[in-house]
């Protein structure tokens, strides 16, 4: 997993609530047996019209927007547990998703792939979206060590929460398997004690 400490980047607004994982990566693209290539199809049915042409209205297709941060509406990542959604967002180049609320499974999947799900208040989210829409060149700064997100136009910032263990994993690029393998003896002892 890639390490993450700070990121300064422009951001792309996606002002829609309840973005489900079927929108992030439709089921018909889940036939692959490796993790590569999902970025090409992220938000496929919003990015392209049914006959295959680009939907110029969609936020990712607007040349004025760029960056490695997606700023999305409430309850991002609801629905299916498919980790392909996280792989697709990472594959497209996103490193941080900002929202006022994340669905549980998506949040875990993102963290397991070095993609930071950053939860802010509804008020701050609306502020970010309006600032980015007003001037797409504004930059956000995400500081994981100090758990702070700021925007350079208004200088407003907010602190964010992250599980201390997950924070350490993100900063060092560790994953849960490393930790669990180090606990094998304890796990075996548990099995014996509970006669499994």
């Amino acid at each position, binding site marked *: 997993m890639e390490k993450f400490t700070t990121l300064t980047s422009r951001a792309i607004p996606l002002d*829609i*609530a309840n973005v489900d994982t*079927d929108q992030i990566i439709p089921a018909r693209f889940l*036939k692959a047996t490796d993790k590569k290539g999902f970025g090409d199809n992220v938000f496929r049915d919003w990015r392209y019209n049914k006959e295959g042409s680009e939907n110029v209205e969609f936020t990712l297709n607007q040349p004025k927007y760029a960056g490695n941060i997606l700023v999305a509406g409430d309850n991002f990542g609801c629905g299916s547990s498919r980790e392909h959604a996280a792989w697709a967002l990472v594959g497209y180049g996103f490193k941080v998703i900002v929202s006022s609320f994340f*669905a549980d499974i998506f949040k875990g999947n993102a963290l397991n792939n070095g993609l930071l799900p950053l939860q802010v208040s509804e008020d701050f989210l609306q502020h970010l979206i309006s600032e980015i829409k007003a001037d797409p060149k504004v930059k956000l700064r995400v500081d994981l060590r100090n758990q702070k997100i700021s925007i350079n136009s208004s200088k407003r910032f907010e602190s964010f929460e992250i599980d201390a263990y997950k924070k350490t994993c993100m900063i060092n690029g560790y994953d*849960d398997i490393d930790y669990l393998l180090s606990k094998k003896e304890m796990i075996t002892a548990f099995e014996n004690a509970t006669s499994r």
Partner: protein
Amino acid sequence: MSNKTLFDKVWDAHVVDTIKKGPQVLYIDKHLIHEVTSPQAFNELEARGIPVFRPNQIVATADHNTPTQNQDQPIKDDLSRKQLEQLSTNCEKNNITLYQLGHKYNGIVHVMAPELGITQPGMTMVCGDSHTSTHGAFGAIAFGIGTSQVAQVFASQCLLLTKPKSLRVNVNGRLKKGVLPKDVILYIISKLGTNSGTGYFCEYAGDVFQNMSMEGRMTVCNMSIEMGARGGMIAPDQTTFNYVKGRAYAPKGKDFEKKVAYWKTLPTDKGATFDKEYTFDAEDIEPMITYGTNPGMGIKISENIPTIKDSSFIKSLEYMNFEAGESLINTQINYVFIGSCTNSRIEDFRVAAQYVKGKQKADNVTAWLVPGSKQVEAQIIAEGLKTIFERAGFELRQPGCSACLAMNDDKIPQGEYCVSTSNRNFEGRQGQGSRTILASPLVAAATAIAGKIVDVTENIETLEFA
């Protein structure tokens, strides 16, 4: 402090270790896998040279990406065939039991596992599928995981998790005739919203659930994730024990009696408290239907679509081509799907068959019936339901996830409505541009006969089933 919830009791019995100010190491009893979310996990282990730790606690099936016709022939779609071949290879290499396509125990993971007695009260169970919450119907902690977590369970039979908060939903009273478990859960989600359960594990309590069959309880727990809850649970009771008894993986003889004695200690203690609690009256529930693009956008079939001034709500109605304030009654429907891990068990087909018997489906309707497993399929034939359906013009297909997520060829065409017994009405869920209306098997059957949405409550008293 000794007053514990059902969830607490099962969770606490599986904690191997607690990281200071961090998550807990939770032991997983049973790991179910399928072809779509497991290959990358096997690859990960292989790349890192890590063996599968407890292959005996893993059971595999092929379901998401399988055809529902001609299952005895090679799969035409190259990628789908390759994905199934990879599952077979991975299971063989790692000594994992696989009920592959065509096997008499094959089926949708959340239908075949309970059927085989793999699912038991008091267990912890995971699967790379969000509807793993289904197994909570037995009083198990069961939840969906991502592929990285599938790899973690392969490697250690454990997961690192923070204990979720607790939520209880009580429904008391008597359900009206024609109100099915699907209506109960669609009603709850319509009242609480799609993220009310996020961060929580939900217990369903009250006499409505106590009086429900295991099939009904599975339908309810299945959709817990649609209100954001990682899982849902119902206290195990005699109905549960009777269901588990005698199944292939169930403990036998004295072992079974010993287990039952333990399972009887699991229900939530009197006086235990929950972080959130809601109570509903069974009498208020009617057959439900959805009008939007998330499962929380549901109404009683006799109600009109609400008017809400919110951009996501408006976008959703635009996608569905519905107007705020209108009724869905008489909306022409050309596709009906009865299937999915929510409603593809034998009871679901019995209800549909009882309604359909002696009637003919409308000419405009394509009606697909997809059983949840080979065993359900065999039962449909043995009970004579297949004949009833075929006489009425319905098509009985072979088991699998099918049009619930449309990974295979079972896709609803662009712009078409489908009244579906599945669990998600997201944009394009049943095929690009398709429009899904979630409902019970009864409402789905009635729609197929009428060719349009009809108010099943109007002639509810004359319906021929109990």
